């Protein structure tokens, strides 16, 4: 199983598939024991291509991101071959790959560091039973669920599955911003009883925000959640909690 096959590049074991192009690159750089800041691009590009060929020979689809990286490597390789122009201040073409590679490595260290910590339910455990408390019957019925955002969305999703999805077509971010603004205006009105038209716009500078606030006020007026009055003399428009 671990045997190297005839046509198989020397560096891959059968069954060793990589998560993404970065993962494969790290593997190649490591296997060749080269300095990440001075990558022999021709060698790495060649082995990278060999790997892709090998994967293809196994009839496994090569994910698009692997091909993008292959193109990037080929491009860097060709730029390395070009004679340097007068401005020899030109950045090393390899930086295009070294920078993300260095960042990727950093996060691999970070991931490893997380794994080395005392993980809950793996290295350390907490009390989970609720029945260890004296004279305290657990009355809560089991059909109650502890709620989080994910549960909320899933509950909603269940309903959408039952009803026609067309009913929910208006759930675009814009519509949600208006809903959010309605909620905020309602908060203000519940607090103060009323607010001037001006007040509701003041803190919101961007054009998008102004439009959203205006749509929210229209929607609230339509639903009679508010009453809008204008002072005869001053012309000030005031909005009251409906």
């Amino acid at each position, binding site marked *: 199983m671990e045997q190297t096959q005839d046509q198989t590049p020397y560096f891959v074991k059968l069954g060793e598939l990589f998560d993404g192009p970065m993962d494969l690159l790290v593997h190649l750089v490591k296997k060749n024991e080269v300095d990440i800041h001075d990558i022999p691009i021709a060698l790495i590009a060649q082995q990278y291509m060999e790997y892709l060929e090998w994967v293809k020979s196994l009839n496994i689809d090569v994910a698009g991101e692997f091909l993008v990286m292959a193109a990037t490597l080929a491009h860097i390789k060709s730029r390395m071959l070009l004679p340097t122009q007068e401005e020899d201040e030109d950045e090393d073409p390899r930086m295009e790959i070294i920078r993300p590679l260095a960042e990727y490595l950093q996060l691999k260290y970070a991931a490893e560091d997380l794994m080395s910590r005392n993980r809950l339910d793996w290295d350390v*455990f907490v009390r989970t039973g609720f029945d260890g408390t004296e004279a305290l019957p657990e009355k809560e019925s089991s059909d109650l*669920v502890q709620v989080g955002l994910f549960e909320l969305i899933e509950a909603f999703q269940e309903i959408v599955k039952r009803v026609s999805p067309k009913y929910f077509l208006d*759930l675009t971010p814009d519509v949600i911003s208006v809903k*959010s603004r309605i*909620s905020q205006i309602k908060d203000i009105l519940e607090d103060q009883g009323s607010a001037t038209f001006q007040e509701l716009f003041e803190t919101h500078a961007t054009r998008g925000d102004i439009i959203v606030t205006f749509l929210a006020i229209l929607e*609230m007026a339509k*639903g009679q959640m*508010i009453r809008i009055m204008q002072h005869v003399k001053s012309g000030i428009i005031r909005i009251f909690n409906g």
Partner: protein
Amino acid sequence: MDNLKAIVESLLFASDTPITIDKIKSVLEASDRKAIREALTSLAEEYESSNRGFFLTEVAGGFQFRTRPECREWIRRLKETRPARLSRAALETLAIIAYKQPVLRSDLEYLRGVDCGGTLRTLLERKLIRALGRKNLPGRPIIYGTTKQFLELFDLKDLTGLPTLQDLKDLGETWPNDSS
């Protein structure tokens, strides 16, 4: 053997139910019953002698840590303020209100296919929803929306933080009747 005592203590602590000597023995494989019983007795004495918040008791054929009866008032209070739990029905109703607000009770009942009076009352009592106003329709039905407390419960800055169905879809949820 002090090490055995520490291990037994950790097992007592981590077990959901009273744990028997046989169970401890099978987990530790090597130890004999006598040493385990000694560790248990010694632990029980330790927790008994000092002024502690819990103690080791022999119950239902096994051993278990339990909080002292003297502390029951405090623990009851602690449990009362446990994080919010909602019934499925309440969660569904709340989800519709969150996404479809401003919304009428008739909309909710159309979508859920059942009467929502009870769940609406619960949600109103828990201040997760509120009346935004009344619609100019026969009977002037109440328009519902979510509250600040709702945002706090779900740790949202505002409603725009609510993920949309599109978001879920993007994250790779399979969509039942996907036509796009």
